[in-house]
């Protein structure tokens, strides 16, 4: 797994960022304070955005920051505020049989890791990482409004329905 080009800067960056993400993700699912969990989630999502940059997907990374770290997190904090007056640590955030999650998650991790390592092994993502160039937004827009126009329409419809649904659900009547 350790490639010959271990010293490539991207690899170092990947290692640091993924370590940060994994720690953050673990804290999200274990910490006993909803607001803290949300803040740890910010760490994970920002880390993901950094990974996207490594993968030369600048536009997606920026969208990730804007939508996730900006909007979705604010939504989460509002949700927390509106449903629980108490902002602080709580004792019973976990399920009664939370332990069931551990074997299931480990089993899935085992299967997936085996499949991934078995399937891709030492294969390089790209022959020369120096060749990677950021994808222009224009190319993405051509893709969205060209061959994948139909999913885009469907998506617009889903968003519309979600907006209406959220209003209907949350409205006081």
């Amino acid at each position, binding site marked *: 797994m350790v490639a010959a080009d271990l010293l490539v800067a991207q690899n170092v960056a*990947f290692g640091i960022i993924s370590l940060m993400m994994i720690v953050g993700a673990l804290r999200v*699912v274990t910490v006993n304070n909803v607001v803290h969990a949300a803040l740890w989630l910010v760490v994970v999502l920002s880390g993901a955005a950094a990974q996207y940059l490594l993968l030369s*997907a600048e536009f997606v990374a920026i969208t990730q920051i804007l939508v996730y770290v900006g909007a979705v997190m604010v939504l*989460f904090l509002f949700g927390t505020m509106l449903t629980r007056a108490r902002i602080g640590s709580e004792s*019973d955030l*976990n399920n009664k049989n939370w332990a069931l999650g551990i074997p299931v998650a480990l089993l899935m991790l085992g299967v997936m890791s085996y499949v*991934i390592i078995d399937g891709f092994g030492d294969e390089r993502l790209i022959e020369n990482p120096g060749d990677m160039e950021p994808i222009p937004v224009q190319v993405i827009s051509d893709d969205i409004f060209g061959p994948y126009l139909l999913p885009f329409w469907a*998506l617009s419809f889903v968003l519309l329905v979600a907006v209406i649904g959220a209003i209907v659900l949350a409205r006081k009547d």
Partner: protein
Amino acid sequence: MLTTQFLLLGAVLFCIGVYGVLARKNAVMVLMSIELILNSVNINLLAFSVRHGSVDGNTFALYIIAIAAAEVGVGLAMVLLIYRNRRTIALDDLSEMKG
């Protein structure tokens, strides 16, 4: 860079998210865990986008981000509704589905 490292990162995040969905009681926390899962999928998509030299992965990562935003919006609206009706958002208490 190896393909494997990105996919493994995605797998680890996915499984942590699954654990969160299973273990958490608070509905907001469950939603956060779902966000973890969706992000792990995005990492996979972008990795494959680079691997195949195609822009399709980027496109669908964007779609997933949009869907996730919609999902969080509706999810939180539902949580608010549940909270208003029951003064709790503990999923353990929502056992109408008991057969």
